[in-house]
């Protein structure tokens, strides 16, 4: 009997639950003091809703440094006079820049390091500069890779070097801190401050840039140059927001002029956005628009006047050119009078727009042999394929029988024969000090003065380089990794303030076979323009 009762109850109970839901209505009115409900009544919908651009959403959550994103390689617009050198993620250097003529200067990006803001700031301030650590909140804000971070400016004695300074732009996600750090003698830091800030702002991830430039053959990571019209100023670009280059009329903060190198949707969609959505006006036929020049291509010019996003008396000039679905546009908005007054300058700007030469794109290399990451370090991504020889700082004619080595952090890295390797790289220090390092790899004592003086020369990067030839047991790599009877051939010289060398090593017989190829390879080595 009790089973029957149980079944009955079990059947009835869901029914009882279903009866519970009533019809929706507002509850009773309740009066609360306005101070208890601080309310902003008149914010724009955009502010109120924290609207995002459709394009930036593709990258997952907006504000995330750690995790997946940290694994992609980082790039930035290398400022003039700076150069990008290969990264070394094993040392938390996910992208590195140097300054021409200032060998001491060092600028690098750490995409994600643990320890949180507090511990990192303690390291920078107290450990490296022996100074009190300020509150992060008191530091000025700075743009760093599309986010708002803080800027630490420290002057003093850096690791024993008096009169040094550091600029560190950083942003944290919980425990993970991303930082762009620039250390150099104070004068160098002061002189390069603006460039540093521009670099910080332009930082982006290799993967992200590639994704957002989807289909835009013209966009890529290109930097755009132009003849800046008189009375205009350039502002930092924000490619993540379709703003590949930004200008405005100086002293007219309401004006905004920017280049979108490639936006999808084709001409009709874009015209509809500009005319209908932004100005609430009917879309004209594209054929009715004037023809102008944009980046060396014929383009149409849209001229719209009216109420722009709620602002009456505004105007927009938009020069656009389409290539299939992709539309490139240069858009200039501002108060009608200002826009009218700058129409000619805008057209000149559009006509003079040129893509600059591609900036070097440091790809994140894999972990170096024999250097696993510390366990606290987040996982690092693989190389995004071997960088083509032309994108590095050097180029050379590659002899027959050499195979490019994929994913190497080194430059022009090739393999040959059975275990032979050859690559170009750069080091700090002196030629002689470097020779001792290589000698030590074969367990040889430091070079003597007489030996050093007697070393032959080879043609290398357009000048004479010291040529070192050694034979012995190679133990340079990890413990246990050794090549018995190895040959080592190095051409080394100081180029542009840095020890630059080309190193070949492998089984002695094979190195001897490839010596001629090595010499001709060195002779053909040149800097990329």
């Amino acid at each position, binding site marked *: 009997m*009790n*089973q029957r*009762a*149980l079944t009955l*109850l079990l059947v009835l*109970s*869901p029914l009882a*639950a279903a009866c519970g*839901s*009533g019809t*929706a*209505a*507002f*509850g009773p*009115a309740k*009066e*609360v*003091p*306005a101070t*208890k*409900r*601080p*309310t*902003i*009544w008149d914010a724009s*919908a*955009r*502010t*109120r*809703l*924290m*609207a*995002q*651009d*459709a394009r930036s*959403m593709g990258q997952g959550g907006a504000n995330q440094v750690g995790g*997946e994103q940290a694994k992609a390689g980082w790039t930035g617009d290398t400022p003039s006079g700076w150069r990008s050198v290969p990264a070394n993620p094993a040392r938390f250097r996910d992208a590195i820049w140097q300054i021409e003529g200032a060998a001491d200067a060092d600028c690098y990006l750490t995409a994600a390091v643990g*320890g*949180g*803001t*507090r511990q990192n*700031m303690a390291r920078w301030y107290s450990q490296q500069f022996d100074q009190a650590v300020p*509150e*992060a*909140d008191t530091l000025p804000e700075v743009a760093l890779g599309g*986010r*708002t*971070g*803080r800027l630490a400016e420290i002057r003093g004695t850096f690791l024993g070097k008096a009169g040094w300074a550091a600029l560190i732009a950083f*942003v*944290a*996600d*919980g425990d993970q*801190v991303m930082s762009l750090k620039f250390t150099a003698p104070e004068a160098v830091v002061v002189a390069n401050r603006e460039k540093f800030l521009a670099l910080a702002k332009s930082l982006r991830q290799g993967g992200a840039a590639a994704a957002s430039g989807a289909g835009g053959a013209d966009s890529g990571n290109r930097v755009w140059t132009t003849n800046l019209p008189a009375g205009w100023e350039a502002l930092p670009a924000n490619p993540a927001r379709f703003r590949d280059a930004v200008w405005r009329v100086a002293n007219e903060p309401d004006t905004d002029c920017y280049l979108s190198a490639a*936006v999808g*949707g*084709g001409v009709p*969609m874009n015209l509809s*956005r500009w005319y209908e*959505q932004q100005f609430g006006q009917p879309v004209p036929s594209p054929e009715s628009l004037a023809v102008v020049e944009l980046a060396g291509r014929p383009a149409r010019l849209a001229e719209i006047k009216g109420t722009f996003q709620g602002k009456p008396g505004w105007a927009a000039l938009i020069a656009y050119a389409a290539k299939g679905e992709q539309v490139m546009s240069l858009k200039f908005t501002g108060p009608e009078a200002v826009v009218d007054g700058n129409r000619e300058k805008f057209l000149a700007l559009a006509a003079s727009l040129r893509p600059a030469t591609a900036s070097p794109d440091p790809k994140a290399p894999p972990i170096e042999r024999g250097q696993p990451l510390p366990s606290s370090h987040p996982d690092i991504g693989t190389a995004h394929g071997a960088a083509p020889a032309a994108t590095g700082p050097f180029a050379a004619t590659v002899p027959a029988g050499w195979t490019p080595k994929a994913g190497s952090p080194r430059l022009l890295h090739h393999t040959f024969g059975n275990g032979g390797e050859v690559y170009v790289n750069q080091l700090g220090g002196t030629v002689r000090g470097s020779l001792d390092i290589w000698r030590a790899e074969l367990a040889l004592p430091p070079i003597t003065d007489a030996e050093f003086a007697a070393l032959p020369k080879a043609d290398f990067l357009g000048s004479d380089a010291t040529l070192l030839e050694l034979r012995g047991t190679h133990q340079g790599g990890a413990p246990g990794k050794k090549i018995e009877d190895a040959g080592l051939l190095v051409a080394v010289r100081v180029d542009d303030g840095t020890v630059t060398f080309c190193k070949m090593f492998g089984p002695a017989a094979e190195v001897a076979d490839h010596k001629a190829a090595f010499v001709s390879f060195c002779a053909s080595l040149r800097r990329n323009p």
Partner: protein
Amino acid sequence: MSTSSAVATATPRSVAALVVDGLGSMRLTVWLLVLLALLTWLGTLAQIDSSTYDVQREYFESWFVLAKLPLSVWGNAIGDTPEGSGFPLRFPLPGAYPVMGLLFVNLVVGGMLRLRWSGRNAGVLITHVGMLLLLLAGFVKLETGYSGMLGLYERGGAGGDRVHESSTFVSFHDYELALLTDKGDTIVERVVPAVDLQAAHGSGSVTLAPEGLPFKVQVHHWIDHSQVVTKGAETPATPVVGGLYLDQRSWRPGEQPKKESEIAGCYVSVFGDGGERFDAILWGYPRAPENRSNYVAAFTIKGQRYALDLRRTTYDLPFAVRLDKFEKKDHPGTMSPRDFRSHVTVTEQGQSTEAQIFMNNPLRRAGFVLYQASWGQQPMGGPPYYTVLEVANNPSDAWPEYACYIIALGLLWHFGAKLLRFLNSSTRTSLLRHDA
């Protein structure tokens, strides 16, 4: 006719008596306990794939559940894996509501009323009283208790619009739609909980007619996990209002979908009696404690300003809490917290008192309990930190503790007496007879 009367006479006891018999039966107890154990076990395993919050709703705060049977051999799941391989193995079970409800009735009828009230049963009776109190505490908490969170920045530590002091707290999960009427120094508030707006999902809509006001509010295109997007070249499935639209937000790859982290959004259309119309998107992103102020979608009808706001269900405290200092200490050389505590000042009707809230040391006041739940950093990281206090109002807050004492006493009495009887019994002697 004759057969039915024969049955009636053959069972002189009424159906009611049978039901009471059944409800009080100890066999029912056993089956209910087995059912609850099964539910608990499956509800535990379900948490491997879903969040605890979701499982709670599905298995333990429900009338009915389609339980997932996670077949696994040597720890390797077979069947319904997250990768979607295999096949879903599900079978129906009653949820914890009917099981625990019946258990309660069974306990009252069988364990209290029909149990012989004798000295021998005293321990059992006491234990059953404790159990009843425990179940009752759970029921009272479920029906009348509510809780939420209160985030506060250190006073003087961070500027801007940050919240340093507050007398309101918001729910962790639940949303409500609030209609505000601007009366200058005061705001007249009418709210409707989000659970009543279920019909506004998808293509449905819910129309609300606030009493005494000259308009109707239509809620539509409700999205549980949403974000607001600027309209670009794409064609959204939802309406575009002012160049913006509400879009389904997706979880990042590898991220476990969590109901508790969802940010609800919806569209509202206001239809004035005089033909006025106002459209807006509402988005329930919680801004506190970074921002004290709430952004609302305002509209004016007949000269009176109103606003609609989609927000976490908001509760008021009879006192204000201010964070004076937040302390966090780590174990040296690590990031593992050793201690974090909030130094607060509580102000009620002009009277201020200071208190410390830290782990295992909540603040109890006026029926509310404030616990140290969590803490957070500046948006860009680093101090000053903010503290997150969990605020709970639970009339049955202390009942489980009393229940615990009662049950401990009852069990001690019962089993102790049993053991003593056994030690002196002939049963023991007979069991030991070979060792004599």
